[in-house]
């Protein structure tokens, strides 16, 4: 996405003494096919290395093999602000803590390239209307790709949220969509009490396109952050239409599609509510805000998430358990793995490891009582995890091992702490 990161390699004569040619500059390029004039664009990732990209007067981009480049006029560079604050007296204050991702990207209107938002200003730039919703305090905490998110960032983020809730009514966290549900689960467990809503939000279409979902998602998230929800939630498009967003519980939500706007679904449960225009509607049973914030910010990273498949070797299983304090297995169906694995798990548990069983079916509840393999697993101490999502169980086990003694971990893992487990599942799913 960020084409600016790849540097230009000019193997040509640059006819601009004292002047570096940069994307955004108006240039004249001499080639074998004639001379072209236009704005120099960031190099395209897939471009050949001899090629430069030029935006012509007619708006078209073309790739050229240049012989000479002459700078006619330098492009304008924007000034940056690191903290953005709007203040209107009678509105609640909402903190926007950006972590990166598509939603936190902005377009350079000169070159048309998409960049990650590096400053708070970039962030608000795409939706200036949120000024009317709240007193916004926006800043960039991380600027990382969703796939680079990890438990150390979760801890930093949680501490920052706690700080912000001292003065803000709620917090909105723009986040890359790929791993947003892991972060929402981590924050859900880390905060046992919240004095304001903690809302994660993302976008499936970047804000450089008129059809972007970033705007509606962000403004809906800010509206939820003004409510009395005392939970971590994810706010994203409910359907492919731009008509409403769902409020998903942080421990129930999962990205179920690679690209659709409505990729996020509440699994084995209903969403907490919806945002339709400026109305925030909660369906039923959500936790309300409390007086103060309570944070358990330790995580034990020595947990494996193991996807079982036919043909998986015992050797691989052994390696994935080695040196670990716990493991969550995504078993087949009701929660099964091959019988070959059972003695390996038995040893791991005997040596102090904690093993939870979830299902790769994603939907539905595991049950280790129905078949003999399940019963054997239960007997050696594998803990059936009800209808908890595997990724949520993985984060939960990290959190439990980080903050509690082993006996307590084993007791709490299959218990519902943050809405991650339901007693009932409905016919309509």
């Amino acid at each position: 996405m960020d084409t600016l990161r790849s540097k230009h390699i000019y193997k040509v004569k640059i006819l601009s003494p004292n002047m570096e040619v940069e994307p955004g500059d108006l240039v004249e390029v001499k080639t074998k096919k004639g001379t072209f004039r236009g704005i120099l664009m960031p190099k395209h990732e897939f471009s050949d290395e001899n090629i430069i990209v030029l935006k012509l007067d007619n708006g078209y981009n073309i790739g050229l093999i240049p012989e000479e480049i002459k700078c006619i006029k330098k492009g304008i560079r924007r000034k940056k602000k690191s903290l953005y604050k709007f203040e209107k007296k009678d509105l609640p204050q909402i903190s926007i803590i950006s972590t990166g991702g598509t939603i936190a990207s902005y377009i350079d209107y000169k070159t048309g390239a998409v960049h990650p938002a590096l400053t708070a200003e970039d962030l608000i730039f795409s939706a200036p209307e949120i000024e009317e919703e709240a007193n916004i305090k926006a800043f960039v905490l991380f600027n990382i790709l969703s796939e680079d998110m990890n438990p150390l960032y979760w801890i930093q983020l949680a501490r920052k949220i706690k700080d912000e809730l001292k003065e803000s009514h709620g917090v909105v966290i723009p986040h890359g969509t790929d791993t947003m549900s892991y972060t929402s689960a981590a924050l859900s467990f880390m905060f046992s009490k919240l004095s304001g809503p903690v809302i994660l939000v993302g976008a499936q279409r970047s804000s450089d396109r008129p059809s972007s979902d970033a705007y509606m998602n962000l403004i809906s998230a800010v509206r939820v952050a003004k409510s009395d929800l005392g939970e971590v939630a994810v706010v994203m498009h409910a359907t492919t239409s731009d008509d409403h967003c769902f409020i998903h519980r942080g421990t129930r939500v999962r990205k179920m599609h690679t690209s659709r706007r409505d990729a996020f679904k509440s699994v084995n449960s209903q969403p907490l509510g919806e945002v339709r225009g400026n109305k925030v509607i909660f369906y039923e049973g959500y936790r309300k805000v409390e007086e103060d914030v309570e944070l358990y910010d330790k995580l034990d990273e020595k947990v494996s998430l193991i996807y079982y498949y036919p043909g998986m070797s015992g050797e691989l299983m052994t390696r994935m358990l080695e040196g670990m304090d716990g493991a969550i297995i995504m078993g087949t169906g009701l929660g099964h793995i091959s019988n070959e694995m059972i003695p390996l798990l038995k040893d791991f548990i005997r040596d102090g490891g904690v093993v939870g069983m979830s299902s790769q079916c994603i939907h539905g509840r595991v049950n280790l009582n129905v078949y003999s393999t399940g019963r054997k697993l239960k007997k050696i101490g594998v803990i059936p995890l009800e209808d908890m999502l595997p990724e949520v169980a993985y984060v939960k086990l990290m959190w439990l091992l980080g903050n509690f003694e082993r006996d307590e971990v084993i007791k709490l893992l299959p218990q519902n702490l943050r809405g991650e487990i339901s007693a009932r599942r409905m016919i309509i799913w």
Partner: protein
Amino acid sequence: MVKCGLEIHQQLATKKLFCECNSELSEEILYKFERVLRPTQSELGEIDRAALEESLKKRRFIYEVTPNSCLVEADEEPPHELNREALEIALKIALMLHAKIVDEIHVMRKIVIDGSNTSGFQRTALIAVDGYIDTFFGRVRIPTICLEEEAARKIEEKDGGVVYRLDRLGIPLVEISTSPDMKNGEQVKEVAERI
């Protein structure tokens, strides 16, 4: 003396330009969805609040999904690679018109927020420049030859917004623009026919 230029659009009967859907029209509607388009920063530089509000009122669009439209037309899946067959046809046309093919073809976005493109822009690529065609009345220059995607079909305008059908969206289109070099109707006719 009247001088005349032409912009000729030729639909190609290949698969669509950025997905595997068939290039045809359809009367069968499978589903409808609704979208809003917003002016982006690239369009306005700084966003003007009043202009934004005004534009948002008009930008509610209803899209009709047909059997020959997939997630790409719905702006729910990134475009696939540019259709090879369509590209080859466009290159052949460019060579026949003596045009210079650019060193590297770049697909870019032309912002269109009347709803005729679900994404809010039309994908288009400049394929070749500086071509010409010789006619009985003299040479006619062809400055640009582009390959682009056809827009969605407008069905109706009603209070709630504008209704578009996705069947036509994405059909490959070769756009040939001539310079205003033509001197009479006969010449225009000759150019149009030969292209």
